[in-house]
């Protein structure tokens, strides 16, 4: 088992802080859950991972394919294209700088069209479709053995309305979780679930309400690894708060035109060039490491 675990691949992201947090990247054969408030970047994370799983092995990636299951309708191909282009250019930059022949050859198969063609997209409208889809996914993965990532964005939406019977919901979620675990293990894929947040009234006597991950306490057992995405003081953070092998930690990250990236420590220069998406599309001019706005 030790050997297997050592050989276990991870999906590297372009954000080194996040990779550190997760011990190399999003691990295969496990379920990783990303939860967070609206607008914090969960869908962006899902899309970024769908691209990152395809990074050719010459660059240290898995060279695999991805399945993206959308329950909310937030998936936009235009955004995916932007991120794919940035990923491709990042890799090309590395390949040319290091002048590595293997990497340069791998770039032939890592164009925007190739990247888009290797993301299998399902749009699911209600829980019945979701349950049905997860039932037949093993067949699909057998026909497409290169799939190394399944993203469900989000697992919460179909289960948050129209459920009078909470015990039915719990049963269904448990069934889904079991199927996902089995899928992840037998096909050596990573399953990434995106969860929403819900307001929970506190019991501590002060009547305060907190935001907690949706779908209830029992759902917390389903995923192996839980990452909470949140805002604080104008910056986005990721906190690892359930993991069997890594300790709890919090790292900053940001969402740029290129996708999910690290936040750089600002220099003392007057440079106000922002690193956020506000700066628009001239990806080629800016270097990959952009400096955040000094406010």
């Amino acid at each position, binding site marked *: 088992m030790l050997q297997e675990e050592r050989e276990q691949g991870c999906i590297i992201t372009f954000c080194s802080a996040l990779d550190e947090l997760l011990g190399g990247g999003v691990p295969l054969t496990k379920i990783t859950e990303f939860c967070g*408030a609206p*607008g914090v970047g969960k869908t962006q994370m899902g899309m970024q991972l769908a691209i990152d799983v395809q990074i050719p092995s010459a660059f240290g990636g898995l060279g695999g394919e991805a399945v993206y299951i959308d329950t*909310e309708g937030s998936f936009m191909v235009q955004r995916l*294209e932007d991120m794919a282009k940035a990923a491709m250019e990042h890799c090309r930059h590395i390949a040319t700088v290091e002048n590595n022949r293997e990497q340069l050859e791998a770039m032939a198969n890592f164009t925007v069209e190739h990247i888009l*063609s290797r993301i299998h997209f399902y749009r699911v409208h209600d829980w*019945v479709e979701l349950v049905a889809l997860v039932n037949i996914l093993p067949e699909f993965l057998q026909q497409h053995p290169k799939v190394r990532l399944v993203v469900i964005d989000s697992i919460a939406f179909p289960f*948050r309305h129209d459920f009078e019977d909470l015990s039915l919901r719990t049963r269904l979620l448990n069934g889904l979780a079991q199927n996902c675990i089995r899928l992840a293990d037998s096909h050596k894929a990573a399953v990434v679930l995106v969860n929403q947040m819900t307001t929970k009234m506190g019991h501590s006597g002060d009547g305060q309400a907190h935001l907690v991950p949706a779908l209830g306490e029992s759902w917390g057992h389903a995923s192996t690894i839980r990452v909470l995405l949140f805002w604080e003081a104008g910056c986005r953070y990721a906190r690892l708060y359930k993991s069997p092998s890594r300790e709890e930690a919090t790292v900053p990250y940001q969402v740029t035109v290129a996708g999910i990236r690290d936040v750089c420590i600002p220099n003392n220069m007057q440079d106000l060039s922002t690193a956020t998406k506000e700066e628009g599309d001239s990806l080629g001019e800016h270097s990959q490491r952009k400096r955040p706005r000094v406010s």
Partner: protein
Amino acid sequence: MSLRKLRRLGLEPELVDRLERHKKLSSCQDILEKIHLELLHLTNLTHSDVQKIVMTASRACAPTPTTALQMRQAGFSSGSTPFLSTSLPGLDQALHGGIPAGSVTEIAGPAGCGKTQFCIMLSVLATLPCEMGGLGGAVVYIDTESAFSAERLVEVAQGRCPQHFCSDDAFYKLTSQVYVHKTPTCTDLWNRLQCLEEELIEKRVRLVILDSVASVVRKEFDNSLRGNLSQRVKLLSKEAALLKYLAESLNIPVVVTNQITTRFNTSREGPHHDVLSGDLGAGNSAGASAAVDGGYVTAALGNTWSHSVNTRLIVQYLDDKYREVMVAKSPIAPFSSFVYTIQSSGIVLQDDETIRKWSERVATDPGLIPIKVRTMLGQGGGLVVP
């Protein structure tokens, strides 16, 4: 699809009959709801037979896959545009083209800030032919506050595209293509939404506007009563799911407007401590002072609703004349803001240098963006900045 009958799946007829008659299992949903053990018990079949039934039902219900590349190509080749241009150049650029089709966009803000004006302007733009940047189709405007004014529609049309709307004929065409439905209660609204699909197809509607989703809900659900909050959340989630379904299946933009509420922020310890005070009575809008006990004003209807919309634009006051629209949540656009005023031709973006100072804004949690409201009208100011 989930209600598809087992009968049509190609299973043996006696089996289907038996299941239907004795065990009340007649649709795929019934099968997929049950866990394996339950099905074994109900059907008295072997494990592998039950497995086969479940898989057949699943295959029937699951959606078909496509690849991202095919989606992109479909977008290029289909005649319909993926965005409705708002004719505000800065906003269009930030949103990669305009209001996206196939998803739900929300405009939230204090009363009188311009949400209904925005909607009226979008209605005019949607009826324009495609060559002029419109969607060339009809508009369904669901009005819960009786705020829609046909006169204003005509005025905006005239101001926006004077060359196109120069004859009575053009005005007639415009007004006959905007279908206004008044739904003053929640039940009216829900009923209207449920039978909307046929209307959308029949009348070739290319834009749906719901103005506003918050007003009916806040009138009828009193948050302080126990149980009402969860009922409200359920209703909103159902509405959101239905709107999304309509948006996607017909590939049209759906625009929803929302009100604002006050949140009190007593502890800033960390991400988990987001205190919800509940709405300050129904109809909380510009009259409420926002600087109460360190509270701040944000979009109403709570956290679950915020998850349900795909794009959120927030409008707010800067001073008596200038307002600002911010892109607070979008899968495709970064955080950005634009200053505008409301004129006879609708919304007009300003980009004077002097106004640019108001546009310096750092991205932050869309749920916590403080929204400026107007307290005293006229009388030189009174803008409360939380």
